């Protein structure tokens, strides 16, 4: 007999109510119940960073949180990053322009790590950026283009 728990939260600015079994991870809830498959599942033990989303504005591993724990909180996923359907966030633009992704699996987690980082550090050094990226693994790029894209995004956001 499965027991479900009611949950309510805000996701990308919209109110949501639903229910989840206690053992359902937040990342699984986002993907399977809400269809928000932009958030990826990688290692499921907090190391790879692919599932990083914002919980109350703070980068958090959605594989290390149960969906029931999101009750009452404000969530933002990569689907909530762009300001509108036909406009990209400066980070997304920069990632495209600077070739900061190849397979793209790690990209959503990296974007959700970098968005609040650039808010707090509008003028970051390369060392700052590499430190900020240290909790996200990318197996394609070697990181250099991600660093370049982050610098480019910082410049765009300053304009």
């Amino acid at each position: 007999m499965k027991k479900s728990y009611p949950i309510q939260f805000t996701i990308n600015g919209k109110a949501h109510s639903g229910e989840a079994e206690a053992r359902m991870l937040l990342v699984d809830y986002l993907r399977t119940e809400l269809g928000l498959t932009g958030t990826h599942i990688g290692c499921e033990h907090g190391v790879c960073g692919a599932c990083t989303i914002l919980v109350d504005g703070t980068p958090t591993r959605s594989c290390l949180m149960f969906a029931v724990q999101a009750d009452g909180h404000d969530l933002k996923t990569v689907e909530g990053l762009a300001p509108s359907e036909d406009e990209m966030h400066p980070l997304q633009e920069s990632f495209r322009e600077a070739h900061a992704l190849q397979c793209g699996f790690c990209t959503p987690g990296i974007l959700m790590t970098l968005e609040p980082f650039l808010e707090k550090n509008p003028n970051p050094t390369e060392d700052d950026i590499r430190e900020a990226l240290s909790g996200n693994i990318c197996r394609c790029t070697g990181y250099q283009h991600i660093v370049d894209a982050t610098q480019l995004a910082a410049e765009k956001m300053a304009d």
Partner: protein
Amino acid sequence: MKPTPFEYITVDSLEAALMHKKEHGDEAKLLAGGQSLIPSMNYRLAQPAILIDLNNINGLRYIKTENGELRIGTMTTQAAVEHNPIVAQAQPLIHETIPFIAHQQIRNRGTFGGSLAHADPASELPLIALALNAKFHAQSLDGERWVDAVDFIETMFTVDLTDDEILTEIAFPPFPKNTGWSFMEVSRRKGDYAMAGVAALVTLGEDGVCESARLVYLNVGDKAMDAKKAAALLAGEALTKAAIDAAADTAVNEEIMPFGSVHAAPEYQTHLSRVLTERALETAHQRAKMLLEGKN
């Protein structure tokens, strides 16, 4: 879904959590930040029947000073401690060490008390608690008690808490005077568990001679390893290269017990510990000297 089914209880007060803990005993695990517990559950290494979620108890999230002691509420996130100016000023060793704990996304949710109650011998906070002689406040419905760090952390993943107790606060005595500090570790990638690490404290007398020292190691034993013999060798010494070498040799040859892993053989962990001991003692010594010179 990866974890096995469990019953979920969320509470907004310590009293409610204690009542549930008393009722369910060791059937129930406490869910703090979950940054170690949830991975264990995803791997099904842990299969608790009941989880009592402490995240809505705001009264357990605080950082304050009282009678010169730094007091940290058990549910305070590691990130909150990392960025707290009181901690940076009053307890420089804690401030220096926290950024080595996993990644920022983990520290944003991982809690100070949760990591200590988990007592992973590879983790940083038990080492810091031991090096700084922290005290642990355990609360149950029947009463409360304070436990010294040396007694609280018993062995790997085992602490001095009964089934009906909750760790509510960690208190640090004032940072000793004329004391330099250093924390260093080596990991394969930033944020990984360290293969070895050490915290060093050096207290200098007014004449610049070492009055006392402390060397505590991580991931080279079944808990944070306190190298007392090595530290005792440094007392009364001028911290020359020879004195530091002698202490480092004693610590790594007699007082640590690395068991090796897929990433590092015991010999390599010993080598790392030896090198880190020298460097950490030198850094702590320099900082202590600067404090002394700043005063004179």
